[in-house]
């Protein structure tokens, strides 16, 4: 069984709003899965549930065969599943290096030392290493508030990778980044991710970006999984075209 993440009948309701309806998904080790869907389709809700931030209304989530339902994000991260965020979640008033050092320190031990300095040689080496991998070393000593958006997204992902996760969930890694920069950014991300041998699932709106890297696509609409499979098949699916991507005749269909 090579299944790293499995959801069974996952549902989430916020009062009258259904954010997730019977989501059944199986991700296998080493896959690169793209998640597409229009805004409000339930992609971030899915990630929030799987990483423990939201409690599902019904259903089960298995990570490496073990149920992680009801566990906190902290426990799930320690179990080996990390994520990045749609809006990069960093520590604004600290330097880029300090941001990463905190990630390193957190990954090393759940009980931080009260007196031993956080900034020691080995942690700094680790942080510098990942900065180099992402090619953002020149921002090392800058305050995060002064760092451009693209770099912030990379730091966000770097912090998730530091804990050596088995699986990485990226929520719109290129959001907020200009169209010209998107491909370069994703290239960097996927290159580093490949080096770390991580199973990846990322949410993305740009179909060119998606097609470039994934071996499989999950299409969401209105809280349900509309299609799940090889990229060509999913993107050619008429329902996917109608509700998600807007294929060649979408405007005609919309007019009907």
């Amino acid at each position, binding site marked *: 069984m090579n299944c790293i993440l499995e959801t069974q009948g996952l549902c989430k309701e916020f009062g009258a709003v259904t954010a997730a309806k019977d989501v059944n998904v199986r991700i296998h080790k080493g896959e690169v899965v793209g998640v597409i869907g229009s805004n409000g389709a339930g992609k971030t809700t899915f990630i929030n549930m799987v990483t423990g*931030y939201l409690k599902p209304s019904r259903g089960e989530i298995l990570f490496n065969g073990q149920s992680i339902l009801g566990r906190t994000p902290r426990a799930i991260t320690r179990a080996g599943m990390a994520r990045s965020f749609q809006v990069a*979640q960093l520590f604004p008033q600290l330097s880029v290096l300090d941001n990463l050092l905190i990630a390193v320190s957190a990954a090393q031990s759940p009980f931080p030392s009260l007196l031993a300095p956080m900034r020691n040689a080995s942690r700094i080496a680790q942080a510098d290493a990942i900065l180099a991998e992402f090619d953002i070393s020149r921002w090392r000593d800058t305050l995060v508030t002064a760092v451009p958006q693209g770099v912030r997204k990379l730091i966000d992902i770097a912090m998730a990778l530091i804990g050596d996760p088995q699986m990485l969930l990226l929520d719109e890694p290129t959001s907020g980044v200009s169209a010209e920069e998107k491909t370069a950014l994703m290239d960097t991300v996927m290159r580093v991710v490949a080096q770390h041998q991580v199973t990846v699932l990322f949410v993305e709106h740009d179909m060119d970006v998606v097609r470039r890297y994934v071996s499989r696509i999950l299409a969401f609409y209105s809280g349900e999984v509309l299609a799940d499979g090889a990229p060509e098949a999913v993107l050619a699916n008429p329902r996917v075209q109608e509700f998600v991507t807007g294929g060649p005749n979408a405007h005609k269909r919309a007019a009907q």
Partner: protein
Amino acid sequence: MSLFAVLIDGTIYASWLFLVAAGLTVIYGVMRILNMAHGSFYAIGAYTAASLVGWYFNNGIGPVWVGYLLMLGCALVAGLIVGLIIERGLLRFMYGRDEVLMVIITYALLLILEDTMKMIWGVNPYFAYQPYAEMGRSALAGLKVSNYDLMLVGISLVLGLGLWLWLERTHQGKVLRAVIHDREVAMAMGVNVRRMFTLVFVLGTMLGTLAGALTAPAISVVPGMGVEVIVLAFAVVVIGGMGSIEGAAVGALLVGLSRAAAVHYAPEFELFVIYGVMALVLAVRPQGLFGRVLARKI
């Protein structure tokens, strides 16, 4: 009999607490400002009333009922002036800042107002007992109760109902509730939030000074009374849920009755009981009995 005494004492104290806390909770509900200076508004109202009313009655200027009107009128005017100065002169430059920072800013305001009052009214106590004494007492199931206190209960009921009706039934109240719910959306819908803030703050201030003026005849008005009162007001507002009128009423009753019970049966616990209930509610239901929980989105 003792139980009845507790009930009466508790209700009287509760109505006083409600009068004090109403302005505080309204301001927080709409503007998300926990106004520490509210106690100072209360004190300003008390000083204004005590000095003017004291002068009026001591010199036998006119009929008694005019004295009462004077008391209420000057409190409202004082509240209007102070509220306008503070909102237009300071607070409107600070909107949007962190909630705790706003608390610290209003704390600074409290410090300033405390000494301002000392400068205007001096440090000696003021008395304006005449309205209290004039009304006499009644017998209520064998207990002697001051009519003034009963009037306070009545006023707080009317005020509470009035505020609630205004918020729930009038158009302005609905707009206010929209602002409470989501400031940005209300602005996008064309609500003049800035003007609303001024209105609400001044209303809250006037409620505060009114409470002070109404209380003045029953006590001696001294420096530091605002500081003591504000913590009680906090307790009531926190217990009831910040921003909720019903909450303030229920919170006031809870605190009033608990305190009365303590005073009658275990006086050493009088202060303990008030803050104990506050801590208990915060521990069990931090948003208060009628408050809303705000979730963070990521």
